[in-house]
């Protein structure tokens, strides 16, 4: 390794640039820091080139973050390019990596189609991933394997497209086909939840009405439509009101109470009525008796 202290400021800067670090001004107060950084990058790179199989993804990630702009030109001759090329010369390794579950793609093997699609439609990741796997042309993959130099020459250009950190976790997704099929059926079931599965798999469904389709994408499941304020008010009132069964029970209780009162009052009521009636029946006679003398008086 070169003695870092003996480098001039410019050499130090160029070396950092080769490791993808865009150094600021190298002056007395910053030189020590940049020397240390370069040393760290060099040791890290040495480790990476020793066991680059495991760290390829990580390495390209960290490199990507630090300097995106100057990578296309100055890195072509960098030592890491050699290690990547060495990897890509080994087709059996490539095949294994492609099928294993925890897949790390070296820079040039990540299929660009998939990354772009994932960016375009993040909400349907699983289905998209599957489709892009099938869409990634075998021919081009084979070309990458058989033609690693060309592949590498392409990679720095594409790098800034698809090796950003948020895309990296996606590369670990399993590459089997089954989840994709599941997701497709899920979509169908989601679209038509109430259709029975037929043995042929062909179903006829009536067309859904399109709600408010003024330029908006058609969803197959709409969330609950917002309620009008009047409905909300009514619901609130209903919540406060006594439930219907309680009302009915209370009604019957009252009816029963009234009936019992009526039954129990029937007997005692008879007497007052009868006395009243009897008094009424007697009264006219007394009235008559009373009236008679009056009339007699008037007559006399």
């Amino acid at each position, binding site marked *: 390794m070169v003695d870092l202290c003996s480098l001039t400021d410019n050499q130090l800067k160029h070396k950092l640039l080769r490791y993808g670090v865009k150094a*600021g001004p190298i002056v007395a*107060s*910053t030189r*020590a*820091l*940049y020397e*240390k950084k370069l040393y760290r990058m060099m040791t890290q790179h040495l480790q990476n080139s020793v066991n680059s199989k495991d760290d390829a993804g990580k390495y390209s990630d960290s490199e990507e973050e630090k300097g995106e702009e100057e990578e296309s030109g100055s890195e072509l001759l960098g030592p890491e390019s050699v290690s990547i090329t060495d990897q890509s010369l080994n087709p059996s390794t490539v095949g294994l990596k492609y099928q294993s579950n925890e897949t790390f793609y070296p820079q040039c093997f990540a299929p660009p189609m998939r990354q772009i699609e994932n960016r375009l439609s993040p909400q349907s990741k699983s289905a998209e991933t599957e489709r892009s796997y099938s869409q990634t042309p075998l021919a081009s993959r084979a070309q990458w394997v058989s033609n690693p130099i060309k592949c590498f020459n392409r990679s720095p250009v594409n790098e800034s497209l698809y090796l950003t950190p948020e895309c990296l976790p996606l590369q670990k997704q399993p590459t089997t086909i089954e989840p994709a099929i599941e997701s497709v059926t899920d979509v169908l079931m989601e679209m038509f939840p109430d259709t029975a599965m037929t043995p042929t798999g062909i179903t006829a469904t009536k067309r859904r009405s399109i709600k408010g389709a003024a330029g908006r994408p058609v969803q197959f499941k709409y969330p609950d439509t917002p309620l009008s304020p009047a409905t909300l008010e009514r619901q609130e009132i209903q919540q406060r009101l006594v439930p219907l069964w309680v009302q009915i029970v209370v009604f019957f209780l009252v009816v029963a109470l009234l009936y019992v009162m009526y039954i129990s009052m029937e007997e005692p009521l008879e007497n007052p009525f009868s006395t009243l009636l009897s008094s009424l029946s007697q009264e006219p006679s007394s009235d008559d008796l009373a009236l008679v003398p009056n009339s007699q008086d008037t007559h006399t």
Partner: protein
Amino acid sequence: MSSTSQKHKEFVAEPMGEKPVMALAGIGDVLGRRLEEKGFDKAYVVLGQFLVLKKDEELFREWLKDTCGANSKQQGDCYGCLREWCDSFL
């Protein structure tokens, strides 16, 4: 990183002027004295170092650690307060 500390708020609220280095968030008496010994007696000198490192968090944190032995929280406080100051006044 406690970006809501009183010191941070005070520092970020106004131009730093001739404030001493102790006015920086995360720099107390001890670290401030160490920085002064190395010639960083004003907050703007530290700001100069921060800027000459191109506001790079990693490098600035390392520099702060090397210069005055700041711990991770102090580094974060100081970096955050300088960065925010730059965002509003630079």
